[in-house]
């Protein structure tokens, strides 16, 4: 449900950057461990962008997998969600990637 506030933040941040130029495309990186559901952001994007330079823009979301290093055995493992165990059985994982929640780029009309 916080995806509404997240989407509003995206639109606000992009609007500030582009001024009155019309946005054609917005690319976000959303990590598997970010706690943000990409489908919900898509859902809110059209609603929230109405009346802003982002109205009608295409939203692209790059899915970033979770990665962690096991503090017990040193192996690097991929995490599909936050409740993950290393193959050695340890839950003591250092998160290396997948927490992204970033606006990568925007394509604007010139």
């Amino acid at each position, binding site marked *: *449900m*916080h995806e509404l506030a997240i989407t509003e933040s995206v639109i*606000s941040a992009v609007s500030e950057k582009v001024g009155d130029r019309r946005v054609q495309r917005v690319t976000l990186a959303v990590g598997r461990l970010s706690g943000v559901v990409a489908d919900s952001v898509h859902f809110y994007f059209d609603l929230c962008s109405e*009346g802003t330079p982002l109205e009608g823009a295409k939203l692209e979301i790059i899915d970033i997998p979770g990665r962690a290093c096991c503090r017990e055995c040193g192996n690097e493992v991929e995490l599909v969600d*936050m409740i993950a165990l290393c193959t050695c059985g340890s*839950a003591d994982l250092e998160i290396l990637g997948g927490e992204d929640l*970033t606006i990568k780029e925007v394509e604007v009309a010139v």
Partner: protein
Amino acid sequence: MCTTCGCSSDDAVVTDPGRPARVLAGDHPHGHDQGGHHHHDAEPATRTLVLEQAVLAKNDVLAEANRTWFRGRQILALNLMSSPGAGKTTLLERTITDLSAELDLAVVEGDQETLLDAERIRATGCKVVQINTGAGCHLDADMVARGLQVLEPPARSIVLIENVGNLVCPALFDLGERARIVIMSVTEGQDKPLKYPQMFRAADLMILNKIDLAPYVSFDPERCITYARQVNPKLDVISLSATRGDGLDRWYDWLREGAGDLLPRG
């Protein structure tokens, strides 16, 4: 809803329960001067701007400002989060009653609606401000900054920020706190840490409340703690009963230690 400054729908309202009729904040200037519709024709030529900007950058900047503000006054700020009904307000009432002679405490109450919690805290004699988020499901750094202007907590005090009851959204929004505390109660499912991993991973301390009720419910505290540490191996855990008093000493020691850490050494 405000898409310019990112403040939540219907604007959060900050109220001092001692002066409930007055809206003290929530009407900060926005400067929505770039509004209005755009009627450009679709143009074929486009340009790509690389931003590489954190989505919550604005909140993070405001949270850092709050953190600096707290640090400058040697204030220990704690963000208390839980699902509704886990006992946050009861724990605060008890803590204030037991420690107010020893520690300077102030409370920021976050709820979607009503001044009920702030009134409970005020009845203990503690400084309190209520933030009503309206449709918002969490506190953010801007709301807390506005709340602090009204609360005016004294230097070297402890500010307890009671977030909106919700195990999902508050985990994402840094308020500038020193530590995050998640409160769970034994009347909830022991698998909560696995169902809401983001919250338990973001927390520094888990308080397992209503421990006096454990014999009457099918809740295995050890299993719950195991689940929580599976998500966050570094999580501190304190089991207590805010109503009966079991385990409160450990919680109070944790608070004293946190407050002591902020004072100059030597």
